[in-house]
């Protein structure tokens, strides 16, 4: 299965990745190879198996509404690329 250059560009945009044309071509081949690999599973006869997104036959895995510990602010923002006054700080969302 061959991914088009446009499809790769679209996925990169959604993933917030800035890629050069070379990289786009490179990843188009790589991603296509991965999809080809995964495509092998299409060969398995699953006509008698209902589709599921879950690998375990579970339902209603829930917890009681009881308080737990939260992280202190310093820990919450510790790994942020940028923080200020306890907030995460990112580049302005609205750019005109």
């Amino acid at each position, binding site marked *: 299965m061959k991914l088009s250059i446009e499809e790769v560009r679209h996925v990169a945009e959604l993933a917030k990745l800035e890629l050069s044309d070379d990289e786009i071509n490179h990843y188009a081949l790589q991603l296509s190879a991965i999809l080809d690999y995964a495509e092998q599973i299409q060969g398995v006869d699953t006509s008698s198996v209902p589709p599921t997104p879950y690998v375990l036959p579970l339902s209603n895995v*829930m*917890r009681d509404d009881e308080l737990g510990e939260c992280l202190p602010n310093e820990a919450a923002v510790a790994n942020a690329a940028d923080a200020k006054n306890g907030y995460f700080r*990112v580049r302005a969302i609205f750019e005109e």
Partner: protein
Amino acid sequence: MTAIAEQPQTTYSVLVGMEVHAQLLTNTKMFCRCSTDYQGDPPNTHTCPVCLGLPGALPVMNRAAIEATIRTGIALNCEISETAVFARKNYNYPDLPKGYQISQYELPQCRNGWLDIELTDGSTKRIRIHRAHLEEDTGKNTHSGNYTLVDLNRAGMPLLEIVTEADIESPEEAYAFLTKLRAILRYLGVNSGDMEKGALRCEPNISVWTAEQKARSEYGTKVEVKNLNSLRAVRGAIAYEAERQAEVLGDGGVIQQVNMGWDEVNQRTVLQRSKESSEDYRYFPEPDLPPVVVSPEWVEKLAATLPELPDSKRQRYENSWGLRPIDAETLSGEQLVADYFEAAVVTYGTDDGKPQRMANWISGELFRLIYADGEGQDLRQISELKIGPEQLAGLVALVDEKVINANTAKKVLEKMYISGEDAQKIVEREGLAMVSDTGVIDEAVAAIFAANPDELGRYRGGEVRLFGFFMGQVMRATKGKADPGAAKERLQELLDNA
């Protein structure tokens, strides 16, 4: 249906579908154990690896949020899905650190419900509920110069989204629908109803069409208005948007499918800058959250926990207690008010028009005192008043028993409101009991006649409208304590028996 703009040839009417987001009143967030009580707290102090979206953190559903959703679905006459599934709604925005919002998508918890609203002409209209599903709230962005500051305290709050069909056909219907929906959510105890604090948020989808387009089911382009933080704002935005769209179309223009905001100061909608380009959400089932399977037994058990809802109360007040419709609606709209009213009636009595008399005291004098209190003018304060419903019943009984008259009772109520004392005690201590003793009244009348010989002569000469003057004098002489009935009767006798 409301006609909203008269163009030379074309009249447009408005059509609205509503999206309502209600934060559920749970102790903890939807998928983690962080506290939901974040209002006013410093940023990012109610977060953990799950709601921060740290790699490897796994969500676990809050049963209380699921149950609150099912209970709401039952109250809104919805079908409760046997299987509900959470999905990932993928998009990149800093208020959602995971890069996706977890939300029930293809298989929501509740579907195909309805809510009846009362229109001003006394008729009832059914607004259909398309679906009600559970999702997580996002964080809060504050835009400041070249930067955006992100607070994730709100991220992961359980959020119930209720979506109506486009059945709302005027700003007033929208107002009535939201008023009733909010009352029900509060009665259920699933939402605070605080629109100002963002705990309840409404986004109307507004379009207009002509009668011909309506006949062909040819819908107009929808405009969504966001950030409406009061019922009045919702009503205002729909009215404004309906008029704007009719004008654009009347001038031969086209309606753009956009998001608008509401400018409270200028009472108009304004175009919102849109989020980033691609709205390709690539929904897929959340593999970390197994499906919610709801048995009929579970639904039954939850249905049994529903309180009596406002509609049922309103009908009971009218039918069993003979309340005027307007009072029945006022007193049933807020559960704490209804509780107070019912407790007062239980003490006071249900016979002989008593519930209506009690309704008058509560919606008249007591509401006036609450509103005059200046503490944000919220009728829910009624549950925290110093004067309890039994005490109010005691006061009104004193009026019935002619111990005090209505005017004195209002003054006593004000004192009770401040001190929380019983009416009887205040009346005794301050000597407010009504004077119906004819001896005392006779004495007062004699003194008034002596002091006002002119007026007396004119009255007896046929100027009978002076009766009011004498009556006022009697009330003043008895410091307002005279039993008005007894005093009036005796005064009439003494005036006529020259």
